[in-house]
């Protein structure tokens, strides 16, 4: 039987199209289901790791489950957040700190964890605010910011690192250089400082002056050195003059030597902080020359090498972390920015321009073996930081890596011109890297760090222990404390405000102390008083004190913003504001109980100690 050639061609085309279709665009069906299995966390099951991602210009920290990639929580830090009742009132200490130190917004870049013996201990997480030169500390028992520090003598706080292995200091790099005396008339070249912050008191213990812009930080695993990449050794003040030199530097600060110099008074005190000038204190600062305008600096988990990424050079510079000598400078690809590590002697470097992660073997690169590149994988797109689980600590897990990409382009359904950020989860357990999944976030994670759920989960509280000055059920009151001041002690529990009626007078300053007296987890209540621009939320056991002006005469409803119970919608109350000249006698709620009432002006308080 003779076949028609046209039919044969048509059949071949159809068969080819069908097979291409069944393969999908990227991965085959079996590869897809294998990847899905690696990141699937069934409802009710828990992730293996907490990933902490900086929120960038959101001013916060995102908590993501790994391997699922589920966004579990946002921890507001430098920006008020009504939904969490964070920094929403002038009386809130975090808001006071924010206002006093720069503003109610921030640009967070690098989350770092407190360490014991080189491993995260679940006590604190620090996060920088590049924009306003600040450092915040987050308590991991409550997942809430508890201190915000403005770093003196510097503008822009960029790279931060914990001094391993036991969190002796937090290293904070000042990125934007300034006149040494702070005077605008000083014609001398600008300089910057590296700050060493005490983790417990959150005080800057000392600073070391460095010429140029100080970028990313890490520390040696034995507590001897801090390493910072430095660009613009030229001390130029515009872009053209910042990229003249062929080489910039990694600044290695000998911490014990700096401590000794400070102890004998070698620091010049400015704004209460002693600053060491390396020129008059030899031995404190070593500048290690690396290709110009480097970016990331990462110390290997075994503490042997510090690896500086070339950024404008396609190389990484491998520095001996003990002798500070350059060991090798292998090529890895275009735009190397940051490096992380597995538990098998491999490094993973992000390539911003290639939009790739390159996996390379450290020993082979050090020995100059030609086959040090192990694998490359495409990421989408323009990767910045990357972090493998535990790669920033002494015992990496070697299982997952997160790529934090700057652009998402076509990765998600179109949502207008402002696109989400794209993170990708990569399986690094085998020889070849495998892209498992991606997840979007609001703007804009820069860096990430991880903690094992098995370590952190037992340390996390889910309700607050009521503070000593918390309002107790049955002790609620409304008291006039001055001719134009009213103090209210209020409790919240399903499904009522007590008291649910406040009577005040036009011109009154109202101080409202609220305690959520629930004892069961996840029973959060809100207090919104819309016409007074007030909206806060309180987790069980939490107490907050807010102050506001009573405003114009009228009836003002306040209501619960956090869905709590079958009577959630009915959970509301009124503030009645009488005219200034009203002859109506205001009813004091619990009047009899108020006769003895001695009200001390409270500050917002929690059970967190």
């Amino acid at each position, binding site marked *: 039987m003779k076949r028609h050639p046209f039919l044969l061609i048509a059949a071949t085309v159809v068969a080819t199209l069908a097979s291409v279709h069944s393969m999908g665009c990227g991965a085959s069906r079996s590869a897809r289901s294998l990847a899905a299995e690696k990141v699937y966390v069934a409802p009710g099951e828990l992730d293996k790791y907490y990933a902490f991602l900086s929120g960038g210009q959101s001013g916060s920290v995102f908590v993501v489950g790994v391997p699922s990639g589920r966004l579990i929580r946002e921890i507001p830090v430098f920006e008020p957040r009504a939904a969490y009742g964070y920094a929403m009132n002038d009386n809130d200490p975090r808001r006071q700190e924010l206002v006093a130190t720069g503003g109610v917004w921030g640009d967070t870049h690098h989350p770092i964890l407190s360490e014991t013996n080189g491993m995260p201990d679940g006590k604190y997480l620090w996060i920088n605010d590049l924009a306003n030169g600040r450092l915040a500390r987050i308590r991991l028992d409550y997942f809430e910011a508890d201190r915000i520090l403005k770093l003196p003598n510097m503008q822009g706080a960029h790279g931060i690192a914990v001094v391993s292995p036991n969190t002796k200091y937090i290293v904070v790099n000042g990125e934007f250089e300034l006149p040494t005396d702070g005077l605008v008339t000083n014609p001398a070249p600008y300089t910057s400082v590296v700050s060493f912050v005490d983790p417990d008191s959150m005080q800057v213990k000392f600073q070391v002056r460095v010429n140029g812009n100080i970028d990313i930080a890490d520390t040696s695993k034995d507590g001897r050195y801090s390493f910072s990449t430095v660009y613009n050794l030229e001390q130029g003040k515009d872009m053209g003059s910042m990229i003249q030199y062929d080489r910039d530097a990694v600044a290695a600060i000998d911490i014990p030597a700096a401590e000794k110099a400070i102890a004998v008074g070698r620091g010049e005190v400015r704004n209460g902080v002693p600053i060491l000038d390396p020129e008059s204190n030899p031995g404190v600062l070593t500048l290690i020359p690396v290709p110009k305008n480097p970016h990331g600096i990462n110390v290997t988990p075994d503490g042997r090498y510090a690896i500086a990424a070339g950024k404008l050079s396609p190389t990484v510079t491998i520095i001996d972390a003990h002798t500070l000598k350059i060991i090798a400078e292998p090529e890895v690809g275009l735009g190397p920015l940051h490096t992380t590590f597995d538990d098998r002697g491999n490094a993973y470097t992000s390539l911003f321009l290639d939009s790739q992660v390159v996996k390379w073997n450290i020993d082979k690169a050090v020995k100059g073996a030609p086959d040090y590149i192990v694998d490359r994988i495409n990421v989408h797109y323009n990767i910045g930081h990357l972090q493998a689980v535990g790669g920033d600590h002494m015992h990496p897990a070697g299982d997952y890596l997160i790529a934090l990409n700057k652009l998402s382009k076509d990765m998600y359904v179109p949502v207008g011109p402002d696109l989400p950020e794209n993170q990708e989860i990569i399986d690094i357990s085998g020889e070849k890297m495998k892209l498992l999944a991606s997840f979007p976030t609001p703007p804009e994670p820069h860096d990430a760090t991880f903690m094992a759920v098995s370590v952190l989960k037992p340390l996390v509280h889910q309700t607050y222990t009521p503070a000593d000055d918390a309002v107790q059920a049955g002790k609620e009151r409304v008291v006039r404390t001055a001719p134009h001041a009213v103090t209210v002690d209020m409790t919240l*529990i*399903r499904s009522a405000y007590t008291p649910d009626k406040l009577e005040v007078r036009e011109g009154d300053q109202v101080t409202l102390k609220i305690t959520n*007296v*629930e*004892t*069961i*987890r996840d029973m959060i209540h809100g207090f919104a008083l819309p016409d007074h621009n007030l909206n806060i939320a309180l987790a069980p056991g939490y107490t907050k004190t807010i102050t506001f002006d009573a405003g114009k005469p009228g009836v003002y409803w306040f209501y619960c913003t956090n869905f709590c*119970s*079958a*009577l959630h919608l009915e959970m509301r109350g009124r503030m009645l504001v009488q005219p200034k000249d009203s002859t109506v006698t205001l009813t004091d709620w619990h009047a009899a109980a108020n006769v003895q009432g001695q009200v001390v002006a409270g500050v917002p308080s929690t059970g967190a100690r």
Partner: protein
Amino acid sequence: MKVRLLYAAAAALVAAALAFPLWGFAMAAPQYPDETLHLQVTRAGIVGDVQEVSTLQHFIGVRFPTELPELTWATAAIVALAGLLLLGALIGGGAVGRVYRVLCAAALVTFLVASAAVVQTRLYQVGHDRDPNAPLRSMRNFTPPLIGPAKVGNFTVWSFPHAGALMLLVAAGLAVYGVRLQPDSSGKAAA
């Protein structure tokens, strides 16, 4: 001799029972994973997740019993029973002793039966004497059993004797067994 030891043990158990919760309740619901609510009835009153349970009860109009006068009576009765049993351990093996111990065992059993009746009555009241203006409308009256589960709204409520009640039960068992062990007038143990 053995009888006296049994009665001494029974007396000790009855006295010790006062230090433990008498009755227990466990309440489980889907939205309380790993956090089943517990209430215990002790001689001092109801303890445990009292705030949470009373918060929930208000939705279905159950009146949380804040005062339980019968606990005062029960405490007095338990102390008295411990005393009676102790005397039963000390008293001689003659006819007077035999009769006394029979009465003792009977008193203890009667107390337990009466207490069970009181608890069941309370449970009935909890399920029936409800606020007619309760927010939730769909709830029917209910009677949790003395021992076992009952479905109350979205909760499964388990009611069970706690350590104290179990100790009283064991003491009653010892007392009854002791009566059967008592030598009769011929000096042989009863059949």
